[in-house]
């Protein structure tokens, strides 16, 4: 009886909202509609994947991190090194980068699970800074501060060359983003995902209900690391270069901003935050390359001080109206 109800609830939450189709449809249509913007869209897709990774631990499991760039970096260096020394096949590099980052996540997880939020922020930050110093010290392998050069990628699936317009790059990143998004969506709406939220909301009660918190958290942390690694691999492959800044503090901090802008805990937050942040940054920096930070800062401040409510209200109304239209039309014939 209860099981049926839970199953029904889970099924209901898994159902697709019309706006979701619109978003992904637009993302695909952008290849034709916005041929001049594919490079930045590629960057946005990668950042979105990276943000989904943080959302998995922050939004669903309540684990904060200020050092998530560690896994982006591990993925990027792993994919880059594989391309230079073993095979230039993009998919092999993607798999390798993802696995390497997952392993890094699994190993560092026990350190992160200890302590409170603030401790966690600083431990993750510390780990990423240590990795950055390591990468800098082992210049013979990583290229050090000059960056990892000489990455050339073979055509995707042996068919599609990475072109100057960024078409292949964008489609590749978008496809990976979409598949991993589907997987994440499936996972967070599964009983496993529910148990994570139980741990986030009330660890004591979750433990009393028999949820093995440590194991669940380790699993989701490793999964998130793998996602970040995939984003790193995409970054390395589409840029064909890896530099130390993939591990830098500002990557983690920007990521945090992106996720907060979009909202944590519903997967789309990462995508929306990445879109909003990158487009705004690019547009403002085009107008004022020197002082764009000021305007971004002002927007962030206003957003917190009440802009969000206004924006949400407007957008929600729009989405609702759109959804109503959509369903009316579906029922009409």
């Amino acid at each position, binding site marked *: 009886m209860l099981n049926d109800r839970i199953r029904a609830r889970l099924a209901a939450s898994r159902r697709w909202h019309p706006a979701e189709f619109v978003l992904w449809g637009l993302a695909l249509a952008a290849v034709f509609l916005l041929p001049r913007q594919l490079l930045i869209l590629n960057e946005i897709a990668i950042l979105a994947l990276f943000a989904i990774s943080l959302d998995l631990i922050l939004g669903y499991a309540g684990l904060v991190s200020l050092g998530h760039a560690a896994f982006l970096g591990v993925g990027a260096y792993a994919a880059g090194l594989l391309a230079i020394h073993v095979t230039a096949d993009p998919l092999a590099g993607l798999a390798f980068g993802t696995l390497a980052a997952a392993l890094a996540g699994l190993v560092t997880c026990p*350190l992160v699970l*200890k*302590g*409170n*939020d*603030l*401790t966690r*922020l*600083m*431990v993750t*930050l*510390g*780990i990423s*800074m*240590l990795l950055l*110093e390591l990468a*800098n010290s082992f210049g013979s392998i990583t290229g050090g501060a000059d960056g990892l050069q000489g990455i050339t990628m073979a055509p995707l699936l042996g068919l599609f060359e990475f072109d100057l317009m960024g078409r292949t790059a964008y489609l590749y990143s978008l496809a990976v983003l979409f598949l991993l998004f589907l997987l994440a969506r499936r996972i967070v709406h599964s009983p496993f995902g529910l148990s994570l939220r139980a741990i986030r909301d009330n660890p004591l009660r979750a433990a009393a209900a028999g949820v093995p918190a440590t194991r669940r958290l380790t699993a989701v942390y490793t999964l998130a690391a793998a996602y970040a690694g995939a984003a790193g691999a995409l970054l390395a492959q589409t840029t064909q270069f890896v530099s130390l800044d993939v591990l830098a*503090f*500002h990557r983690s*901090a920007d990521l*945090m*901003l992106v996720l*907060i*802008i979009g909202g*944590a805990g519903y997967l789309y937050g990462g995508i929306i935050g990445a879109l909003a942040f990158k487009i705004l940054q690019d547009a403002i920096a085009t107008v004022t390359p*020197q*002082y*764009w*930070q*000021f305007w*971004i*800062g*002002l*927007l*962030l*401040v206003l*957003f*917190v*001080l009440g802009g969000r409510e206004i924006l949400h209200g407007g957008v929600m109304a729009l989405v609702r109206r759109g959804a109503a239209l959509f369903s009316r039309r579906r029922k009409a014939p």
Partner: protein
Amino acid sequence: MKLLTLLVDGIAYGMVLFVLASGLSVTLGLMNVINLAHGAFAMAGGYAAVVLMQKAGLPFIWTLPAAFVLTALAGAVLERLLYRPIYAKSHLDQVMFSIGLVFMAVAGIDYLMGSTQQFIQLPGWLQGRFDIAGVAVGRYRLFVIVLCGLLAFGLQWGFTRTRFGSRLRAAVDDARVARGLGIPVHALFAFTFALGSGLAGLGGVLGVELLGLDPSFPLKFMIYFLVVVTVGGTSTITGPFLAAMLLGIADVAGKYFIPQVGAFIIYALMVVLLLLRPDGLFARQRT
């Protein structure tokens, strides 16, 4: 003797970190507000000193109280206008809000003052060093140690021994009950925030000579402040103080004895300490 010189260097470095971070510890620990824009107040203090010295010809020693007062005032105004509405918001919102402020401060200072390094000229009596029983001690470093030591002592005394301190602690532990007892919670918080900002401004002036000053200061040193506050814990003044000392000394000594791993030390030490004492070195047990 050489070791004592190093020790003095480390302590002075740690002292500056402490004064810079102490305000953050106050706002975070007592008011439960994450204010990443703390470094921006420090930067404002530094720039205020530079302008006062270069444009108004104020002697260095007078820029210290001036910067403290100016940043404290700025803190009080901003608290009233901007910060008060975000006390009730989530920590993530506070992070976003204060990073926004940092971005604005960085770009604003760049616009007003340019992006080059700023300098102050220390008065002659603070330059160079002297020998104390064979140990060479930098005059300015000694000055920093004495001044910051007094400050730390004063703060600790203020929070534990005065009426203000006990009211503040009461307000933090339970704002509603404290208000019911007639404690002016809003005013207390505003005062505390201003004090924290003023301390940051003072640290900013002291740090110009040791840490440098340019528009990227708040971003560059944000990590260091956070390290001090987390390792020290946020519930006391002594915690961050000892943490800053420890990190300052370990950093200096580590770089001296094993320079190859120079950059690793502070982070490795932080991770290890936090794993051993997740709530900070000197956490007060909360029930």
